């Protein structure tokens, strides 16, 4: 019960934060657009279209903010663990790929991605890492011919 209550209040905080972020984004886009040059109506410059979009985004986000007070919360809330670890696994793969080569990057990637899944056993992760390293080398290097080293230290 407490868990659900905590999720609900968290959800409300976020459901206000998301439109606020969009309002900020709209204002930023509109302000920067002014610098691109608006040109004349007969020859619109590169700033006209983004200026209009920025203003529309801010207004729509404001409308969403007002409407958000009536929303039904999603009691499942957000699961931060996979939400952060899954993108992190991708970033780690990107960072390691050119530095250490494909197989080390794949192994580290699988480990981080495995952390995202609470039910994954270490055995599952090991098997997956081995399987993916093999397919990666076959598909990526021999199949698509992408110039990446298999392993590099």
């Amino acid at each position, binding site marked *: 019960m407490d868990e659900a209550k905590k999720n609900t209040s968290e959800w409300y905080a*976020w459901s206000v934060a*998301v439109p606020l972020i*969009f309002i900020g*984004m709209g204002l930023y*886009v509109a302000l*920067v657009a002014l610098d*691109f*040059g608006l040109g004349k*109506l*007969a*020859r*619109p410059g*590169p700033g006209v*279209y*983004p200026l209009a*979009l*920025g203003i*529309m*985004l801010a207004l729509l986000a404001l*409308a*969403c903010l007002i*409407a958000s007070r*009536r*929303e039904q919360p*999603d009691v*499942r809330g*957000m*699961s931060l*663990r*996979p*939400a*952060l670890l*899954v*993108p*992190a696994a*991708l*970033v780690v793969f*990107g960072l390691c*790929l050119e530095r250490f080569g494909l197989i080390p990057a794949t192994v580290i*990637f*699988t480990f981080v*991605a*495995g952390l*995202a*899944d609470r*039910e*994954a056993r270490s055995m*599952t*992760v090991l*098997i*997956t890492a081995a*399987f*993916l390293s093999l397919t*990666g080398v076959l*598909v*990526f290097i021999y199949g*698509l011919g*992408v*110039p*990446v080293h298999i392993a590099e230290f």
Partner: protein
Amino acid sequence: MDFQDIYLGLQVAFSWQALIFCFVGVAVGTAIGVLPGIGPLAAISMALPITFHLDPTISLIMLAGIFYGAQYGGSTASILLNLPGTASSAVICLDGYPMSKQGRAGVALFIAAIASFFGSSFAILLMMVFTPLLATFALSFTSVEYFSVMLLALIIASTVSTGAPLKGLLMVIVGLILGVVGTDVSSGTFRYTFGLLELADGVSMAAVAMGLFGVSEVIGSLSGATRPSGLGKVSMRSMYPTRAEMRSLAKPILRGSIVGSLVGILPGTGPSVASFMAYSTEQRVARDRSRFGKGAIEGIAGPEAANNASVQAAFIPTLSLGIPGDVVMAVMLGAMIIHGISPGPELVNSHPDLFWGLVMSFWVGNIMLIVLNVPLIGVWVKILSIPYHYLSIAILFFICIGAYSMTGSPFAIYLTAIFGLVGYVLNTFGYPPAPLILGLVLGPMMEENFRRSLMVSRGDFAIFLSRPVSALFLLLSLVMIWLAIRPYLAQRVRPD
């Protein structure tokens, strides 16, 4: 349409490469359709990087195969597990799962496959007749009409089927803004690139699609419940319906095909809307409504014909006008642009090999699918028992590889990661990510047409209203916006 065109299309569709990639497409499509948790969008965006290395016609044949293949596979999990494999087959659960509990799963699967085949065939025929006609009509379009019709398409797409019209509109605007990022075509100004050279060519649509639909779906499934077990076996002998049942299927399939085709042609509405509308149509015309929800075969045949028809019919506006019928079509349109093919009414005449080759490959693909889904159904049922752990990590891995191989730099992987997180947050708070992709793909074309129109009229906005076709599109856009915000205004008057 004449026989020369069809002959040309058959030549393309029966080339070895086309046959192989069509098969890969429909097989992958069926597999991801069968698996709950991954939709056709995720699979198509994952396949996008691979298509960069292929001929444009072959890439479209494969991507399309994934899309319509998924509609076949989608009903399998609905029938056997009461878990929709794709959003568009959710309604199949209503009567499919009860049939499976009565021990008639095989019959339900057979009906779904047959209805899918007829629904598709109906819409492909429509496509062969109407795409060239519509394209000829649209040849008179100028930048003014294009701007207005794109505006209408975006508004319909964001308001009709998303369930949250305000948020849908907001997401379209975000997509349009992302479309601005990069070098401005007419002035060479760098816009919103934050000094990153990688953004000079714009935000990669493939990376955004993989993030929003691939990565965020994996996050969602890892945070959700695990898959239930308890699968039986389906043998081919158990699949045949009785003769009376076969006869009673004809009308629901025809009704479903018509409803689905109409929904598919409308911009912005996809197979999910089609299958729900077909189900309610079947309920309305039925003599005995109480049978629904207890294993009525029309409840499978109608919607299943409809979602397949809508998928094929969605190609009509996409290929004749360059206006995507739904999100998947927007991704396909993006794929065409990446290959340097500008979508629009000239496409049918200037690339007849592409258009007719694609159409003929639909026939080939649907015949492959009926084989895959009737005699080989057991293979797909087995796929349902793969544990999700292996699958989700493998999906992520292929996304990484695909993103890297697009440009040979890790930047696309980082972009995909960011949009994965963004997509998950947006999904949780009810912001539909699909309109964003539509905005991103259509954005640059819209801006170009907008600026060109104003240049032609020397800055006079009246040009958008003085041309009748454009005025009609704008009027319809206004009506759609009014319909979308009316419920919000009504709430304010009488709060409850």
